[in-house]
């Protein structure tokens, strides 16, 4: 591969540009049942934790999932044991994998985000991904993404408290471009483009019942591909693609559109070995095209 530059983000270097997306590999306790440490080290550049909040969250009542044509609506509602329990119970095992761990954080307020940033600063965590885009919780979540000035405050505040890798995960809806610029100005190291799309599934007709949640998977790839393409012209910080990456070809297309790393999300749910397959296919494509072609947007 013509220089592995593409998996450098800020001052951080990753062994591969493939990160496991938040919420799509559990809390880590069952990961090793399906991928061995060697596989993880060779295919996975970083592990992005399930969205963690200051206090434990029980998550939403069922149904939490709804399959759509080539997509998945999820409404997990950020079920998680809370940052502190996570650090005690799950983090040690994950650290042993010698693969960078990025903490996906969800706060109901700026203060909660700041408190978590301080905790993570203390333990010298490697990275934070700010989740300002979860469509499945009432407070915080996607509401943040609608206000570029609030996002600016948030990122600036976290930046002051946390010196490691700082990523903001954008919502694909709302004033995306303005929010992206606000993140860049507030010195975010990179942007994840993007979280799931607000969606709805009708799961019962009589009585009429719906599931509201976020859409992921191949269905959304053309939408997120366009966001990456447009954002790469607007901001200079690296973009991490997240949306419907199921094959090396998908990642390659995101690369061509300007992404420098790739998150594997829904693909992990379909097949826990997906990261290995995708990483391999990507390498083959890079070889086939004789190195990564220069970006040449039209």
């Amino acid at each position: 591969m013509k220089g592995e530059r593409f998996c450098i983000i800020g001052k951080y270097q990753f062994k591969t540009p493939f990160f496991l997306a938040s919420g799509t590999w559990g809390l880590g306790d069952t990961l090793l049942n399906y991928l061995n440490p060697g596989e993880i080290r060779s295919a996975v550049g970083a592990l992005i934790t399930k969205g963690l909040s200051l206090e434990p969250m029980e998550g939403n009542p069922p149904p939490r999932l709804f399959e759509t044509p080539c997509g998945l609506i999820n409404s997990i509602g950020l079920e998680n044991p809370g940052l502190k329990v996570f650090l005690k119970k799950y983090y040690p095992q994950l650290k042993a994998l010698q693969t960078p761990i990025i903490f996906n954080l969800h706060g109901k307020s700026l203060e909660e985000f700041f408190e978590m940033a301080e905790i993570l600063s203390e333990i010298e965590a490697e990275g934070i991904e700010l989740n300002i885009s979860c469509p499945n919780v009432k407070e915080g979540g996607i509401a943040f993404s609608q206000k570029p000035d609030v996002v600016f405050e948030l990122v600036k505040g976290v930046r002051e408290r946390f010196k490691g890798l700082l990523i903001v995960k954008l919502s694909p809806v709302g004033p995306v471009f303005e929010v992206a610029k606000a993140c860049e100005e507030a010195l975010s190291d990179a942007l994840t483009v993007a979280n799931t799309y607000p969606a709805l599934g009708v799961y019962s007709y009589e009585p009429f019942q719906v599931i509201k949640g976020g859409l992921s998977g191949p269905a959304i790839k053309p939408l997120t591909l366009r966001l990456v393409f447009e954002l790469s012209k607007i901001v200079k910080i690296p973009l991490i693609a997240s949306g419907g990456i199921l094959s090396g070809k998908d990642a390659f297309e995101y690369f061509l559109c300007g992404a420098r790393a790739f998150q594997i999300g829904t693909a992990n749910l379909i097949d826990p070995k997906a990261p290995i397959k995708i990483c391999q296919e990507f390498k083959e494509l890079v070889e086939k095209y004789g190195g990564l072609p220069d970006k040449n947007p039209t």
Partner: protein
Amino acid sequence: MEKIKVLRNLRLSERIYLLELPKKGSLLDIKPGQFLKIKLHDLRYDPLFPRPFTVHSLEEGTLKILYQVVGRGTLALSRISQGEEISVLGPLGRPYPEDLDFPLALCAGGVGVAGFGFFLERLKEELRKKTILYYGAKTSQDLVRLDYFKAFGIEIKLTTEDGTLGEKGFVTDLLERDMRDGKIKTILSCGPMPMLKVVKELSEKYGIKTYLSLETFMACGTGFCKGCVIKKKDGGYFHLCEDGPTLSAWEVIL
């Protein structure tokens, strides 16, 4: 997931099929009550997710899945021919619980009977004698694999809603009669949700230990997505693919 070649895909009735796969790799470790997920290999993303199926039998060198065509995924599976490759992942989930007291009632609605085959294959001969299979369906042609089940030498009680085979009515009516008579110590039940709700009610009414093999849509089956939740009686949720698919009837809210 592991690629595997289909040995046979047999149509048993209008909507019910028997899929035969070679026993190999991680599939050899599977235990009764656990499940696999199966995906077709055809470059197509709809349906997006593999479908979960209980292991029906692991005798005779083959692994058998008993399944019913209900939608896109199972329709596509039903069209797979011998020799074609599919992908499987498993074992997933937990085996049937071990603290079963006998006499044991296996209560099945429709293809819910699938997992009981494998269970009986592994059950000791003397315990089989204390096991009764209650097996109900809409109509006689949906009562499949009867010879196979008869060969275990267990007592079998059949019902159909239209009375074309066995007793006419619901399988839970038959079960309740025997529960009332105190004939049963544990119930293991699998079938459609309305049936399981009745079984749960009966188990509470008669105070008989009962396990239900439940279903939800599963995106991962591996504990990754946290989507397959069933409400716990005392708050919080079970994740069916990790904690189940078989749960104590008394601990869940359906």
